[in-house]
């Protein structure tokens, strides 16, 4: 017997919004009306940050990639660019991300495994050899050791003749979220924020086109936060960096113009759309109302979206191809500037060339075949979308208010309360997936029992490449000007101790071929190491 047609089931989004079966003018009015919809390209940017959005320029396609040595990664970069990738998003291995050299005892077994191994400027030079940095913008997924890696990128670009004043690109460099999820922190919370401030200040003065920070709701969502929390925490983190920069006397418009965002997309499509439209509006309003920002470049929430690793499943991995396409659709409907998809094999391995290409083709299909770029913000004016955008905004505001009443994001992270809340949500969700309350196709519905016999292609980790990398490092250590390295590192320590900006000394150090481990080691000498608060 089929269920009665006049009895709709109840629908509740992860963020807690109750969804009605039908939306009309009354629901929109009750949620706050259509005042916030506005015009694309104008504050508060609900409909998108550019007047013509994809009609003028489609989103940048920036697949995340990197593994093994710089030479191997260079080949993958070349492959992606040949297939239409319009930007690069670099994955670094864990030793690099944690500020350790490839021959550090803690690095054993991890060199080049989950990303490209970088020890010195020489690796950076090799990875980007012949890639036109003015045409292909590069995003560096680096956080704890961002000072060293950004310095290497700048040094490499300068050696190649690019002017920092016009250099474009992005560093992730969002350390606060690393304490919540992802975990590649190095230094304690306060000096970590100070280092982010050093890059903000350096770029505001010397590399104004470069985005020194990409605030990541993404990894907070991946760690368990619901979509409203993802946006609330991301905005709170971004504002924490703004406040730090203001304390240092920087101009709010210049600093905020260097901040970009990285968001997750998995889950309910409409919930993501509402999250982004509400988030854009809030960012513009918060910056203007609280900090008096006026430059449109500062007020625009620029973002990368499309990835949602937490939504992918090991079970029936081909389903991830379809999920990727829906995530891409959701991201385009949300007005993202840059898109990167998780490849279908990413739930268990580093993407194969074929899988990475399929991700690219998925995005290209949207742009070239499906008509996603035909008009700006096609969902605008929908009673449903506008009402839920209003409700999502109210939800995010209430989360931000609660967070501020508890002492703010920095204290919440330092005390481990934010991490505990996010991991509580992850546990709750896992239980709901296990009980079937949250459906996952192939996992708790339409499951197949022959999962173990599935043939999947695994990325082969080549241990010999680690030895090649260590050999390369040792040769370089012998050849470089040891006195220049030692002098620059000593100055770096002195500047860190005195509270001066550390970027100039870091640049000198990496130009003399100081290693990631040496630069981060010098800072460890001064700042110490983060001690994780264990709290459930």
């Amino acid at each position, binding site marked *: 017997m089929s269920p009665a047609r006049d009895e709709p089931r109840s629908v509740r989004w992860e963020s807690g919004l109750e969804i009605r079966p039908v939306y009309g003018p009354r629901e929109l009015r009750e949620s706050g009306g259509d005042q916030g919809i506005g015009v694309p390209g104008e504050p508060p940017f609900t409909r998108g940050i550019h007047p013509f959005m994809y009609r003028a320029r489609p989103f940048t396609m920036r697949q995340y990639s990197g593994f093994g040595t710089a030479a191997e990664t260079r080949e993958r970069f070349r492959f992606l660019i040949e297939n239409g990738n319009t930007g690069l998003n670099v994955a670094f291995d*864990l*030793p690099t*991300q*944690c500020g*350790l050299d490839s021959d550090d005892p*803690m*690095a*054993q*077994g*991890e060199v080049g*495994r*989950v990303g490209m191994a970088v020890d010195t400027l020489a690796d950076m030079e090799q990875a980007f050899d012949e890639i036109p940095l003015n045409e292909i913008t590069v995003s560096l997924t680096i956080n704890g050791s961002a000072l060293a890696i950004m310095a290497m990128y700048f040094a490499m670009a300068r050696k190649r003749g690019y002017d920092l004043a016009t250099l474009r690109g992005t560093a992730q460099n969002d350390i606060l979220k*690393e304490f919540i*999820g*992802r*975990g*590649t922190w190095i230094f304690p919370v306060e000096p970590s924020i100070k280092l982010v401030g050093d890059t903000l200040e350096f770029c505001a003065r010397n590399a104004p086109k470069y985005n020194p920070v990409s605030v990541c709701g993404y990894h907070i969502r*991946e*760690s*368990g936060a619901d979509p409203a929390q993802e946006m609330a925490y991301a905005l709170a983190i971004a504002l924490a960096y703004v406040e730090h920069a203001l304390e240092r006397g920087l101009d709010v418009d210049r600093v905020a113009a260097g901040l970009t965002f990285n968001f997750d997309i998995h889950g309910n499509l409409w919930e993501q759309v509402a999250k982004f439209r509400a988030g854009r509006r809030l960012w513009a309003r918060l910056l203007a109302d609280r900090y008096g920002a006026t430059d449109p470049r500062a007020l625009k929430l620029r973002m990368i979206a499309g990835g949602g690793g937490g939504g992918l*499943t*090991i*079970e029936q991995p081909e389903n991830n191809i379809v999920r990727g396409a829906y995530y891409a659709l959701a991201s385009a409907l949300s007005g993202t500037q840059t898109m990167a998809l998780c490849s279908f094999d990413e*739930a*268990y*391995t580093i993407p194969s060339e074929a899988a990475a290409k399929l991700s690219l083709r998925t995005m290209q299909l949207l742009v070239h075949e499906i008509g996603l770029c035909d008009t700006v913000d096609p969902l605008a004016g929908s009673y449903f979308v506008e009402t839920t955008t209003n409700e999502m905004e109210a939800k995010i505001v209430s989360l931000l208010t609660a967070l501020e009443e508890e002492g703010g994001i920095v204290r919440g992270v330092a005390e481990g309360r934010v991490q505990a809340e996010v*991991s*509580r949500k*992850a*546990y709750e969700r*896992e*239980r709901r997936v*296990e009980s079937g309350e949250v459906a996952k196709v192939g*996992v708790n519905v339409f499951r197949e029992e022959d999962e*173990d016999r599935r043939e*999947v292609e*695994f990325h082969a*980790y080549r241990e010999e490449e680690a030895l090649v990398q260590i050999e390369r490092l040792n040769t370089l250590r012998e050849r470089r000007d040891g006195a220049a390295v030692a002098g620059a590192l000593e100055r770096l320590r002195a500047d860190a101790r005195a509270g001066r900006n550390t970027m100039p000394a870091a640049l000198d150090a990496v130009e003399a071929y100081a290693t990631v481990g040496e630069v981060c080691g010098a800072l460890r000498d001064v700042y110490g190491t983060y001690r*994780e608060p*264990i709290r*459930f």
Partner: protein
Amino acid sequence: MSASSPQRVLIAKPGLDGHDVGAKIVCRALMEAGVEVVYTGLRRSPEAIAEAAVAEDVDVVGLSILSGAHEPLTAKVIAALDGAGGPRPEVIVGGNIPAGDREALVALGVSEVFPTSTPLATIVEFVRTRGKA
């Protein structure tokens, strides 16, 4: 272990992998089931994990590894545990572990492998019925 005392488990993150969602979910599930859980936090060296296992007198050590480095890291932790003397706690491994790597881990001395998407009840049940070798 005696029947009256609750199981004690150390959940550890060896190596540099920062993905701790799964480890923390398993911690919570075990706690809810009445198991006493100690969580190391991220980036623990094999020696630090062995030290904690001895100091906390745990019955089981659960390693969570999602970076792909499960074989070298597990080998080092087991060597450190063996070097610590006394009865060795059982070692279980969870995370992003391909089915084909299970045997190699068992050969290293791992009691059981719980790859991503293992039901929590399976892990809880296993831990509650096992103890020091």
